[in-house]
């Protein structure tokens, strides 16, 4: 009889697993009895099934699962300098903290050693923050590049997004600080002159950190911002 084997091709799986309706099963039975090809294929199926269970699982030879499967090797702990980030975060917190004191009790906080005019101080702060921001950008840029080279595909993008998010947050923080300073400066301008002499005589212990900041600024070294900004304890 003629057979295009289609029925067996289609259903041999289910036939062997016993999942066919009685009607289809009967048809297959008939095919297997009457088509030589289908008959032998069915035999091969059963034998292959049996053979597959005779495979002896081999132990995987030792291999370096990170070195060979994760090329190039990624050293996760190295790509971001957490210390630097903590310091910069701290610096921003301190500046914000000091600014709050300015607005709450401005007479006490602006004690930069008397000789500085408010304008000079503001300029120094501006340039300090700008150079600090630039240094921060550069350092993050280079870290980002290193990270990009080392990371793969989407894990790379993951980290990049993460860095980008942090960086933009940091930039927003700095913008916020600078804007705050500028608006505060105009409001304070008139009162500052009157208060300067009083302020000069009222050094507050609390101002040690911000004094260090402006010392480093007057030394003209923005790079030292990190160390001079680092609080003694926190």
């Amino acid at each position, binding site marked *: 009889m003629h057979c295009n084997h289609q029925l067996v091709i289609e259903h041999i799986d289910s036939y062997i697993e016993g999942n066919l309706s009685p009607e289809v099963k009967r048809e297959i039975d008939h095919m297997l009895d009457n088509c030589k090809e289908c008959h032998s294929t069915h035999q091969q199926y059963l034998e292959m099934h049996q*053979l597959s269970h005779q495979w002896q699982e081999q132990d995987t030879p030792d291999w370096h699962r990170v070195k060979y499967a994760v090329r190039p090797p990624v050293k996760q702990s190295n790509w971001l300098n957490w210390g630097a980030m903590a310091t910069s975060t701290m610096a921003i917190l301190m500046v914000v903290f000091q600014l709050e004191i300015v607005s709450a009790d401005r007479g006490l906080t602006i004690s930069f050693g008397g000789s500085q005019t408010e304008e000079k101080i503001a300029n120094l702060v501006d340039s300090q923050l700008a150079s600090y921001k630039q240094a921060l950008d550069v350092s993050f840029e280079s870290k980002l590049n290193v990270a990009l080279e080392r990371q793969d595909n989407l894990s790379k993008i993951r980290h990049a997004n993460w860095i980008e998010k942090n960086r933009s947050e940091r930039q927003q923080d700095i913008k916020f600080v600078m804007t705050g300073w500028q608006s505060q400066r105009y409001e304070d301008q008139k009162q500052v002159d009157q208060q300067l002499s009083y302020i000069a005589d009222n050094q507050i212990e609390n101002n040690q950190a911000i004094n260090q900041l402006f010392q480093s600024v007057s030394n003209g070294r923005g790079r030292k911002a990190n160390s001079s900004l680092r609080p003694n304890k926190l």
Partner: protein
Amino acid sequence: MFQINKDETLIDKALGGSERSWVGLVKRYEGLVYNYCLRMTFNSSDAMDLMQEVFLAVYRNLPSYRGQGQFKGWMMRIAANKTTDFLRSRGRNPLHRAGEVTDDSFDNDGLFQSRASSHTIDPASHLAQTNKNQQIKEVLNKLSDDHKQVVELKFFQHFTFEEISQQTGVSVNTLKTRLYTALNKLKGFSEIQNAL
């Protein structure tokens, strides 16, 4: 089998940078992949190369894994792609033409021992195992790469036609025809009977 960490947990941690989770994930599946590679290639050296290719691709594609408990199938799809590439490149490589291929039956002991120096293998049982495995490989090697793959995935990995279709991108109907043809082809060699 109870798994302390689900695949998804290990994957998440590995993506977060945990080397240990990645190694844990690899160790969970490397036996499966390695034995698959052994059947798909001629010798343990090729199998190791192919397995490393597979896990390298798994690692690179891990962030795009969106499965819910489908990691094995997802991984085997990568394995299927890598196997196709591997066999194709070997086909082009004159050193690997049929008949010139160095087979495990000749070099296996040296290769296997040197690669698995930390394992101690009972030589007698090892020989018996590799002999049986050798016969299975000889049967599979009668088939074209396409046919070999569908037999492998169906009989040795017990995937459904639908799953194999997802892994290979080949339609269910084509796969069914391929399996029929592959099995039909083997009867001429009566390799299966000899192997059993």
